[in-house]
């Protein structure tokens, strides 16, 4: 069995490290421990942990539900596991679990289990059984670490897309309308004659929805990143509000050159800027 030291993830990608940028957006969380945990009953361990935002972790769990049946647990402030939980981070969480799932509506496989993500307050102590023995062999270990890395990537992307859109929405009327208003508040009260405009004139789904779908469908980080770059090309040609730049910045990677200088070919502009 690998020792705790051996089982730590090799830190090579920014989404596997703590983020100073996220501390900037969540100032009260800077020194907080990881209060939110994503559990997978298939592994019987905690897959990833998060300290900033339970809803972002839940959104991440939703995009991961194409691969695992995830449960997000919120760790209560006090509890019998208090001595144990502060040490859990994304480098050692695969060594931790809960001894039984009787207090969870979702985690137990069987008639009550479902594939979609759920969130619950954890009502059981945490213990440290060590590395999951059913993922000890090379092949199994590789797929588990691949899943964990992909999950951390998804978590960071979900932070990035939500923050970069929210903080730069002022001139993105089309995107705001798509995300918040049309389906939620005006469903059945408009048709295609009333599609909102955008600077680039494209009439596509919100980039938020596109990116979530990419994360849900992709099998690897490489596949997802490449599809994300393509999605940005379709959605945000000029990036006047720096949404795209901020998105990559929060992920922790430089915006790809092909996007920095990207402009849509003229013939694809359905309604050119000067029409307005």
């Amino acid at each position, binding site marked *: 069995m690998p020792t705790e030291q051996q089982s730590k993830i090799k830190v090579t990608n920014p989404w596997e490290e703590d983020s100073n940028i996220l501390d900037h957006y969540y100032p009260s969380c800077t020194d907080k421990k990881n209060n939110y945990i994503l559990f997978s009953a298939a592994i019987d361990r905690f897959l990833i942990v998060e300290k900033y935002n339970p809803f972002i972790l839940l959104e991440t769990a939703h995009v991961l539900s194409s691969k695992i049946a995830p449960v997000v647990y919120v760790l209560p402030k006090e509890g019998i596991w208090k001595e144990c939980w502060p040490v859990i981070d994304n480098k050692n969480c695969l060594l931790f679990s809960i001894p*039984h799932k*009787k207090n969870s509506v979702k985690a137990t*496989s069987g008639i009550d*289990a479902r594939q979609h993500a759920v969130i619950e307050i954890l009502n059981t102590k945490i213990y440290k059984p060590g590395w999951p023995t059913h993922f000890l062999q090379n092949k199994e270990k590789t797929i588990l670490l691949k899943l964990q890395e992909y999950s951390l990537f998804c978590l960071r992307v979900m932070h990035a897309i939500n923050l970069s859109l929210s903080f730069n929405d002022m001139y993105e009327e089309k995107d705001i309308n798509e995300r918040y208003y049309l389906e939620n508040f005006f469903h059945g009260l408009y048709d295609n004659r009333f599609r909102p405009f955008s600077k680039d004139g494209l009439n596509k789904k919100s980039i938020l929805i596109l990116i979530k779908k990419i994360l849900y*469908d992709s099998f690897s980080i490489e596949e997802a990143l490449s599809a994300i770059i393509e999605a940005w090309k379709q959605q945000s040609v000029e990036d006047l509000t720096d949404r795209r730049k901020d998105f990559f910045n929060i992920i922790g990677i430089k915006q790809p050159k092909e996007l920095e200088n990207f402009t849509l070919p003229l013939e694809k502009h359905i309604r050119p800027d000067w029409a307005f």
Partner: protein
Amino acid sequence: MLKLNDKLYISSINYVPYQKNFWQKIRDVSKSGGKFMIDLGLNYNPQRFVSRNGEWSLPWPQEIPKVFEMPALNKKFNKSFAEVTDNRAKELAKLIKSKNYKFAVMYSGGLDSTTAMAALIKNLSKEELKNVVVCADTGSMIENPVFWKKFIWGKINVLDSATHQYDDLIEKGYHPITTDEGDGIFGSAAFLDLFQNYYYYIKELSGTAKRHLINLKNKTTDGDTHYSEYKDLIIKHWNRKTPTKNVGEHWYSKFEKNIKTSNIPINSLHDYYWWMLFNLKWMSLTTRTATWSNNRIHCKKLIEHWLINWFNSKDYQQWSMTNNNNGEKIKLEMNSYKMAAKKYIYELDKNEYYLYFKLKVGSSNVLLKYQKFDHLPLEQNPNARFGLDNKFNRLYIDQPDVQEYIRYHMSNYEIDW
């Protein structure tokens, strides 16, 4: 009209609100065996245990229809799960060729129905697949999105299971294919519950029992570790919901008698829970949808002519009886449950995540949820159904003859194990 000496195919002690008062009143007039059967239903609701092999007394006379009998064990059976599954699909292909049969696969995206779909996709020609529709709901997509996108949507005709019950499908000429008895082939969700919550169930046992069981936790699928080593745990598990404390003890003795009088080797703890499904619940698994989720078609016609119980073949049952404790049904942890099915699906879809991380998700209630029964009088609702007599007639709990039948037999049934 049900007579007192009539035999039943399936009976159900079901703690739904509709039947609760009835069973409580029956309990008052029941002898010791009858009281136990009702209390057992509190733990395992609905309680529909019927034996196909070995002694298992019931309050009333029981018969197993030929189509659901257990085949005699063939110790030399050596076909792999993949061979058996491919052959099953080829049998259906023959029916398409010879009789132009049309099939509707009740598809949840789970391991059993995905196995059936994978087999049909692998073994049927494009032309033959035109006679197959997938009956699914939105939950089916979510449970297995990769399979849905890669193999179903746009490739095979789809019907919404929310609006297509067995009745509707049959009236359109489709033979419904159900994989309801998949758990019976591979083992029991109750075992998964026990394994997943092992420390919960042992926490109130004595120190000695606890130490003993902790040492045995990783041997639950080991054929050399006999289930009787787990006796305290099994009893605890079977006492989990019942106010009557000795239900677990009675269960253990009654089921042990069944195991000892059957001719199938039951060794590990997993074997124990597998046998419970494969033997005692096979009738329930194979007939439950026909009995409880179907209204217009008579059960005899449905079961004998229309319904295809995918896993109810001699070969699947032989495979199930000859593949205990070798990692094919389960290795140890929950993600390895139905491993043979996972490997079979992987050969087609190459989805590593499904292979390593997919868990059993219950979907048996989905059909019930979509069932339209508002037009039925209350006393004919699914929750008012008691079972089937041996002519496949549905029995209802409010029928005076059924009530008299139950009262008579329960008040004469003593513990005999």
